[in-house]
Every structure is written in structure tokens, then in C-alpha cells.
């Protein structure tokens, strides 16, 4: 159920503004049909969340096509024109570089970059924000960016690092496939951070766009000998605080 400021939302009216079968309309439908109550301070905030979810999915698809390589942090690399590789394998925005241009370069010159799956999730969020709020607003908000795993996370996206249970899982959610019996020689297979693409598939950096079963099969191939526990999709998600982001960008 969707409410706006405590009142039932005009769901049909909202859904009609979006392409049938698209990310936004399917999210509106899922929220409206849920047994849980989703309250928004305004329709604009709901629209912002829907736009962000659409662009998270689009950014994940673009990142998949970018040629971004999978590398463990020890072997990570980046385009030094825009980024500085830190000694722990993360990437810091190069002083003087334009934040939106630096993020866009990852999508356009993906083969110049290699990193782990958690970093890719942050690149997806930044790409989505640029698409929704534009270069100028993005550059004002993110004068410094550090890309790594959930250990280093900008405050604006802090909530994406916390996995929480939700009544419903939607397109654009960050999910996690855990591999509890991972082979200790390959800790990079301890789990896969993914974006829910809204069509039953998930984008995970390194594995590509696959069904949940296919991702689990990939992880299961990297378990320790005689493992008794298979990989599984955790019943939780990491979500940006869309209201906070909406307010942050003064929309």
C-alpha cells in the first residue's frame, strides 16, 4: 500500500505516467499491492525513488557493457587521469578531476578499470545519481569520492552498506548472495553483490547478468571440498535513503 503524507496514493494516476512494464510502473504496482505500508512525504519523493531505481538498473546494464574487469583489490587498477589508486586497492578521485566525468569514464572506458563486486555497486549508484540529478548537482555534492567496498562509503549512500530485511524486494535493490562454505583460497567468491534488475535477473560484477540460480551455481563451484552448505540469496537488501537523497539535491 502506498500513502502520501498518510493518505492513500492515487496509484493508477501515478502508474499511468510511466511506461507500462517499465521499472517505475512495476515498482509502483509492487508497492501498491504489498501488505506493507509505504508512506512518502510527497509524490515527488516517490517519483524520485522510482527514477533512481530505473537508473540504478540502467547503470548496472551500462556497467556490464563497459568492459569493467574483475580484479581483487590487490590487483585493482584504474584510469590514472581521473583516479588515484590507493595502497589498499581502492580508487580516490584525483584532485582537480570533475567527479561526474570521472565516474562517467568508468562506464565509457571500462577496460581501463579492474576492481571487486562491492566497488561496482557504488559505481552503479554514482552513475544513477548522475543520470537523475545531472552533472552540476552531482559535482557539487561529491567533490571527493572514494571507491572501495562497504568499508569506505560516502555518507550520502551510507544506507546501501547496511543489509536490512524489507517486506518487499524491488528492482534496483542491492542484494547479496552469500557463499558460507567458500574455498578459503578464493575469498573473492565469499559472496556476490548484485543489483536486482527487475526481470528475475541480477547484475553482479564479475559474473554478469544472470538468474539467481545461475549465480548460486557459480558460487557453489567455488566452495571448499566436502562443503555441506550451498550458496544462497540473503533475505535482505541494501537501499539508499531515497528521502535523504531527494532532500540533499533540493528537489
Amino acid at each position: 500500500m502506498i500513502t502520501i503524507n498518510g493518505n492513500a496514493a492515487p496509484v493508477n494516476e501515478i502508474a499511468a505516467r510511466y511506461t507500462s512494464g517499465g521499472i517505475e510502473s512495476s515498482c509502483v504496482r509492487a508497492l501498491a499491492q504489498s501488505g506493507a505500508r509505504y508512506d512518502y512525504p510527497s509524490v515527488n519523493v516517490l517519483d524520485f525513488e522510482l527514477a533512481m531505481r530505473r537508473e540504478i538498473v540502467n547503470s548496472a546494464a551500462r556497467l556490464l557493457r563497459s568492459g569493467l574487469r574483475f580484479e581483487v583489490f590487490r590487483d585493482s587498477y584504474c584510469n590514472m587521469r581521473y583516479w588515484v589508486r590507493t595502497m589498499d586497492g581502492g580508487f580516490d578521485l584525483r584532485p582537480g578531476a570533475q567527479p561526474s566525468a570521472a565516474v562517467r569514464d568508468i562506464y565509457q572506458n571500462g577496460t581501463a578499470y579492474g576492481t571487486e563486486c562491492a566497488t561496482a555497486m557504488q559505481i552503479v549508484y554514482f552513475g544513477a545519481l548522475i543520470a537523475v540529478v545531472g552533472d552540476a548537482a552531482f559535482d557539487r555534492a561529491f567533490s571527493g569520492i572514494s571507491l572501495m567496498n562497504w568499508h569506505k562509503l560516502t555518507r550520502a549512500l551510507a544506507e546501501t552498506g547496511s543489509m536490512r530485511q524489507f517486506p518487499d524486494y524491488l528492482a534496483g535493490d542491492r542484494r547479496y548472495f552469500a557463499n558460507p562454505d567458500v574455498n578459503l583460497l578464493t575469498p573473492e567468491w565469499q559472496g556476490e553483490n548484485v543489483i536486482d534488475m527487475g526481470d528475475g535477473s541480477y547484475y553482479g560484477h564479475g559474473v554478469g547478468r544472470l538468474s539467481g540460480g545461475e549465480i548460486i551455481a557459480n558460487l557453489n563451484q567455488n566452495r571448499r571440498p566436502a562443503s555441506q552448505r550451498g550458496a544462497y540469496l540473503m533475505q535482505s537488501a541494501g537501499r539508499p535513503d531515497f528521502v535523504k537523497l531527494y532532500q540533499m539535491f533540493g528537489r
Partner: protein
Amino acid sequence: MNGGNTLGSFGMFGALDRHWHAHGATSLKRRFVNTVGENRQRAELLLQDDATSFPVIYILRDDIERLELTDSLTAREKYALYITAHKAGDKSRAALYEHNIADLDGVIRPTQDALSWMITTGADWDGPSAGRDDYDAAIDAAVAFFADRFDDPETMKIAAGLIFRRNRLGLNVHDLAWGFFLTAEPNALSYVAKHLLSDNPADVELTCKLMSFDDPVTKDGRRALYEEYLAWLTEHRPYLYATAEHFNSTSKPYSVRHDREAKFLRREIEPRGRTPKKPLTDLEYQQLLAHRANREDITHDND
């Protein structure tokens, strides 16, 4: 080799290690190759010296393989080079060692001796590329294997120290910390928590991140938190289990939790499998069912 007619250890270091410390890696390799040419048996004994360290074997491994001395290595040295080759993705190199160290079922299970040796003799060096090579990756793997299977507090203390030393240097600690927290052994956890009391802000910050503490900011506050944590460990010791949560999945990992049901029953659990060490009695099982029925939230088991 200087002082070379003695093959035993001198204090902490063997002859090969002393040469490395005094003259560097290039000189060590040259001297070792010369020794093989002059007296192969003597070279074999140098490799087998109890006081020879993992870094020295790592530095000499190209020469050891080229000069066909792999069969002269000790079992722990073979394990170490197997892990190192595997971490480098070099399967043909790993194959040089695996036929010697696999168990009867074909599975390689590094021994406590091998892992402890890698960690204790290898923790003070970061490899030739200071954190960007297969040496420190092998150390990370050794810590993971060790934490996953063994409980020697002294080795874990060294591993904990390595996490913080690397962090102070700005090097990557993630795989190392992930491996370390495969244990739920209270002494090992307390070694990490003790860094709350460090004068180095980087130590305190990392401790808080690794253990999901909110930094109390003041020294007194940190000491109080540390003592509170030790008390929590003592109270929950029999019920602790490792979750393997890490920064790959969350920004606030709870690497160790306690099993509330085990605590309710006062039954010790296996920290690595979260199963009771002894099967429950029928009475305990009935008590557990009643306990579950009385609890609204049986899944939230984190303190």
C-alpha cells in the same frame, strides 16, 4: 655462506635468514645457488633447517624449482609454496607440490604446523612488492585456513598484529581480516579489541570498523568499552559462533554473534558450525520448543 659451517639455528634465525637480513634477497639467492653447486646436500639441509622462515623459502622458490630441490623441502614448506602458487593462479606451479601433500582423499588440508610457521615467520614482511604480490596473498590465506580450523592464541595474536601493522602502512587488510574473523575464539577477538586502547587513531578506527563498535571518542570511554567487550566474551564464550560477515557484504559486519538458544539451554556450541557440541536431550529439546514458542523474535540473535 658467512658462518656457513653451522646449519642449526642461531637464536631466532637460521643461516639463510641471517644472510637475507644482512645482505638482502639478491645476495641470498646468489649465495644459495652457489651452495647448491658446491654442496647440494648442504643446501638441502639449509632448506630443512627448523629456523628457516617462510619469506626465505618464498625468495628462493624460483631457484628451488629450477634446481629441482622441491622434494628436499619440508612438508610445511611445500604447503606454503602450494598455497602461494595457488593464490597466484599458477596451477602448474601448485602441481609441483600438491602430489606430496594431499591427503589420501586427494584433498589438501594445510597442517597447523605449516600455517603457524607461515604466519609467525612471515608476518613481519610484506613481500617484494609491499602488498601487491602473491606473498601477502599467501599469508592472508594462511590466516584464513588457520582461523578456520585451529585455535592457537599465540599465532592469532601475531595475525591480529599483522592486520594493524598493514593498516598503519595503508595496505589492504580486507582478505586478511576476513580470514582472521573465521574464528570466534575469545582470545583472538580480545587481541583485536585491545587496539581500542592504542594511541594510534588508525588502530582505534580500524578496531571500531572490524568489531562494529561506535567509537566512544575518549580514552576512558574506550577502556570502558574494551572491558565491557571482554566481559561479554567471557559471559558468552560457550555460545559464540563466527558469522563470516565482512566488508564485502556490509559496512557494519558482526563477525561474531552468540547463539541465544544455546545460552538459554546453557549448551556449548561449535563456534564454526553453530551446532551443539553434544546432542540435545529430549527434555532440552522440549524446553527449546517451549522457549521458541514464547519468543516473538527468535531470529534476532545479535547483542
